[in-house]
């Protein structure tokens, strides 16, 4: 009886939460109205960039004649596979996925394509055939942008450190690979250390940065941190050590990045414009639905380089 009461209380809380929800994590049924239906399946609706991505799909849906809904991937491959299958069962015309694991969801994406659904990968690359198309920035190019930024400030070369993204995450691997490849042509730039945190956690990035500052001190002239929120922790560590001239690079171009570009002496963010990527995804999806010959599988969106000189040219995103 007691356990029945407990279950009832928990269910009541869940119902209350879902009632006051309706935000990023909500799943909405497609509306009637003759438009094509697009189901967005983020890696996790709790990821700020993905939640913002859904808002951008909703914002521009009418321009591209879509009714948009979302099924949450819940940061889990099995959940994301289930979501893809559910979207097909719901009769989606287009499924846009930000993969938790690009390889693990291939069978579900192929089954969806065989059922006549256009499947696009959002903010990540894919292999031909796995999906109908992908729209993303090229994370490997971020490394080249960082190297150029370092050379702009230190033409004779510099020493610094790299703090990666979540260990094992595809974006973190690509950003590191791109940076390493770009550095191969510039022996005058030396990376003293490279560490990844367990997850995309600013506190973990800060602890790593503090330990690197202890170890290398003034040898650190630049820090490449794989995401802007993590760079907040890096800046705190540098500030505590009185190293306020260090050049810091972050990736994402989110609201924090815009703040840091203004408040830190040398801060650059390599922005991935989520709104542009969402709009491009719908544009390409329409081309595939219309069987237009100009539709391409790989669609790379260039990075926005946000610096003190350029931040006025961009609108700070909400996330």
């Amino acid at each position, binding site marked *: 009886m*007691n*356990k029945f*009461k*407990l*279950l009832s*209380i*928990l269910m009541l*809380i*869940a119902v209350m*939460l879902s009632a*006051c*929800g309706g*935000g*990023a*994590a909500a799943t909405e049924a497609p509306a009637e109205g003759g438009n094509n239906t697009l189901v967005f399946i983020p890696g996790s*609706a*709790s*990821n*700020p960039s*993905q*939640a*913002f991505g859904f808002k951008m799909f909703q914002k521009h849906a009418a321009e591209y004649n879509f009714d948009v809904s979302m099924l949450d991937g819940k940061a889990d491959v099995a959940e994301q596979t289930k979501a893809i299958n559910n979207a097909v069962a719901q009769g989606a015309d287009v499924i846009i996925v930000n993969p938790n694991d690009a390889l693990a969801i291939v069978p579900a994406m192929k089954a969806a394509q065989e059922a006549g659904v256009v499947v696009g990968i959002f903010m990540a690359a894919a292999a031909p055939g796995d999906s109908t198309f992908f729209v993303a920035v090229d994370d490997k190019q971020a490394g080249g942008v960082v190297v150029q930024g370092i050379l702009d400030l230190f033409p004779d070369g510099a020493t610094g450190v790299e703090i990666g993204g979540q*260990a094992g995450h595809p974006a973190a691997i690509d950003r590191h690979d791109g940076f390493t490849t770009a550095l191969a042509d510039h022996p005058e730039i030396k990376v003293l*250390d490279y*560490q*990844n*945190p*367990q*997850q995309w*956690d*600013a*506190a973990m990035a*800060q*602890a*790593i940065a*503090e*330990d*690197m*500052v*202890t*170890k290398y*001190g003034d040898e650190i002239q630049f820090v490449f941190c794989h995401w802007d*929120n993590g760079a*907040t*922790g890096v800046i*705190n560590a540098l500030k*505590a*050590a009185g190293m306020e001239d260090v050049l810091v690079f972050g990736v994402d171009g*989110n*609201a*924090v990045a815009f*703040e840091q570009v*203004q*408040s830190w002496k040398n801060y650059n963010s390599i922005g991935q414009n989520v709104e542009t990527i969402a709009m491009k995804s719908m544009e390409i999806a329409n081309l595939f639905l219309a069987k237009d010959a100009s539709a391409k599988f790989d669609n790379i969106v260039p990075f926005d380089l946000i610096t003190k000189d350029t931040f006025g040219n961009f609108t700070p995103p*909400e*996330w």
Partner: protein
Amino acid sequence: MNKKITTQSIIAFARNNLIILGIFILAIITSFVEPNFLTVGNLQNIMRQFGPLIMLSLGMTFIIMGGFIDLSVGGIISLVAVVTVSLIDPIGQVAALMVGVVIGLICGLLNSFLIIKGGAFKQSEALFLTYGMSVVFTAVALIYTAAAPVFLTYSKTDYSIFTAIGERFVGPVSVSFIIFLVCLLILYIIESRTHIGRSICLTGGNMTAARLAGIPTEKTIVFIYAVSGIMAAIGAVVLASRVTIASPIMGKGYETQAILAVVVGGTALLGGKGSVLRTVIGTLLIIMMSNCLNLLGVTTYIQYMLRGAILILAIWLDNRKQYSEGN
């Protein structure tokens, strides 16, 4: 004979304190390989990194001593951090901090209410229930922020009181360390000098026997979860003031680290025995291990493996100790 007894006692000591010895050796190796390890700057780093985890771990000690577990502290951290940071502008720094602590208290009381009303008096039942509550607290934080991080806008507002908690020093001692010392003193007095402290151990040792002996076990459960909620909230404030950004998922993983700190410190996982002082050592070892491994340039993957191995070793040693004491 004396010599034999001495050797045996040394071996017994080493066996009972294997993890502490291991990390002590790691610290010695690090100080030789990396001379900066023993600098004032690095000790201050350790002191600052110590802040958030120790607060949670102190609260978790009471929970585990009482024979329960609390996986909701990760969710409480996320919720308290985003609410506190977001309220600084509208209601001021001190009021926002107080709201944060009250939210932690409410979350803790809610946990205890559900445990008592649901009859979840076994550790395994409390584990699943508090895990569920962690998901609920995180979901509330996500809804509250629309999944976006909340950050301090230095260029516009003064956050001196709030950021002092995580960043500033009084002499060589960080403000967060002073807060920790005050919390430790209060919890140690409760644990060792009060009736409720004894009730926690008796409840954790054998709840049925404690109840029959007239111990108010339900009040004890309410107390330990309230303390855990408050300590998680203080940990969240220290964390957010240190990192200056609050994300609705920032507490993820802290619950397991807190349990690790308590168990490595030597508090019995099944309850009944332990001390907040032991947890201080456990937390210090975890923070120092991470600091040493970073300074030695050990990759993240190896660090995960070592952390997992230490947890397994600590539980194995704890079980062995319980078994030998049982015989």
